[in-house]
């Protein structure tokens, strides 16, 4: 009896029309798209760039909403505009240059990605560092003291970014941040008068459809009584572009000015903001 069973087994294990076994080429890589783009409202994210990728972002914040329809909700007040180009030197490190209209400010910055969150959760968070050095190039020759020296126009920023994609929908980033102004003159378009500003940036993304997310940012100050920055908006990913539309309390777009106050009351003093992100490939791979 058992021999018959054995024969049956042998018969059925003869090769039959066998398909290939479906197996993944790479098991469990890094988590993709914690955020839609390297920028999220006004803060940088842990979203890395590949080597030789060029990220172009154009960001705007307009006037406050409280002018109403007569001022087209702040659009008539003109915009603070920042252009930035960030280039992937390697998979881990990218270098960028940005110019914002407010105080004609040039900023040189870099992002370094220490670790990336993994699908198997062996590394539960992505951690990146950001550092920046900037200079205000406005003309102050009208001042009795004349134009400030170059050194007095400079400011620096540093951020530690810790982010996690909790689910396909929800991502969160905490960014302990600092900004240091060598000489925060009153004439500069910053509200605070101290040199060092400390704050924690909180960014979140909640996906509502396959290609769009609700976004939120909150930047409580740690060492000043200035009003905190709040922003909320929507990210839309559209074939290579990421459009980001939001309401935010501050016109500032660079990492230094963002921490130095100037926030309006959330609600009537919100400003409309609009970013376009685009990534280009340069060189041949």
């Amino acid at each position, binding site marked *: 009896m058992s021999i018959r069973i054995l024969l049956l087994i042998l018969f059925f294990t003869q090769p039959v029309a066998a*398909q290939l076994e*479906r197996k993944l080429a*790479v098991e469990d*890589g890094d988590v993709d798209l914690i955020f839609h783009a390297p920028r999220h409202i006004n803060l940088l994210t842990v979203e890395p760039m*590949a080597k030789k990728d060029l990220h172009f972002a154009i960001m705007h914040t307009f006037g406050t909403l409280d002018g109403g329809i007569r001022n087209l909700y702040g659009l008539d007040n003109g915009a603070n505009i920042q252009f930035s180009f960030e280039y992937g030197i390697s998979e881990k490190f990218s270098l960028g240059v940005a110019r914002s209209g407010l105080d004609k400010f040039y900023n040189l910055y870099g992002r370094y990605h220490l670790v990336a969150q993994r699908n198997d959760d062996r590394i539960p968070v992505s951690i990146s560092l950001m550092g920046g050095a900037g200079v205000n190039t406005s003309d102050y020759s009208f001042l009795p003291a004349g134009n400030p020296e170059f050194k007095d126009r400079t400011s620096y920023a540093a951020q530690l970014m810790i982010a996690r994609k909790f689910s396909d929908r929800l991502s969160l980033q905490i960014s302990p941040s600092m900004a240091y102004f060598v000489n925060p003159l009153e004439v500069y378009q910053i509200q605070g008068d101290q040199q060092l500003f400390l704050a924690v940036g909180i960014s979140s993304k909640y996906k509502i459809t396959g*290609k769009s997310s609700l976004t939120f940012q909150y930047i409580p100050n740690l060492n000043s009584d200035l009003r905190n920055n709040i922003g909320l908006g929507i990210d839309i990913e*559209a074939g290579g572009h990421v459009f980001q539309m939001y309401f935010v309390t501050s016109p500032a777009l660079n990492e230094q000015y963002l921490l130095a106050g100037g926030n309006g009351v959330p609600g009537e003093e919100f400003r409309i903001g609009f970013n376009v992100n685009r*990534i280009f490939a340069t060189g041949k791979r």
Partner: protein
Amino acid sequence: MKRVFQLIIICFITTLAEDAFAQVYKTEKGKAEFLSKAPLNEFVGTSSNLNGLIDVDKNLVDFFIDLNTLKTGISLRDKHMRENYLETKKYPFSEFTGKFKTLPKFDQKNHDEVFVVGVFKIHGVEKQVEIPASVQKTSSNELAFESKFVIKLSDYKIAIPKVVFYELAEEQEVTISGVLKK
């Protein structure tokens, strides 16, 4: 009892023999490429991780690819493609299983222009297809193949939002090629 043993031995031998003489060709390094030709943007995605099998005796043609291996040259675009369009977390593979409509001659001098019929699957949607292919036996244990076909994204429930219409083509031209080895 003796006859039973003889039977077992025959079974074993035929199993071995089928392995030795079977006309099974395989590869794990085939090339796959898609071309998206939209009015405002044209781009190519490639992978060299196409897995394929052609079993001549059983007339079985079986291919699959891990869609995570497709690269378009811009990492953010790859990520958007995986997460929003192909949804590779849910549907990591694109597959084809079928057979030759008429078995090729496998003449070493000329390549055979043939059709394969079977089921193509991507984004979790299966569709009966007939695809032109070219195969040639390049040596006693190698089989070269190439095939070009068009995938209509809407056939496989891959939606293109209206704002992306000018950047992403509804019809993707796919080319696969490679050398299968015995």
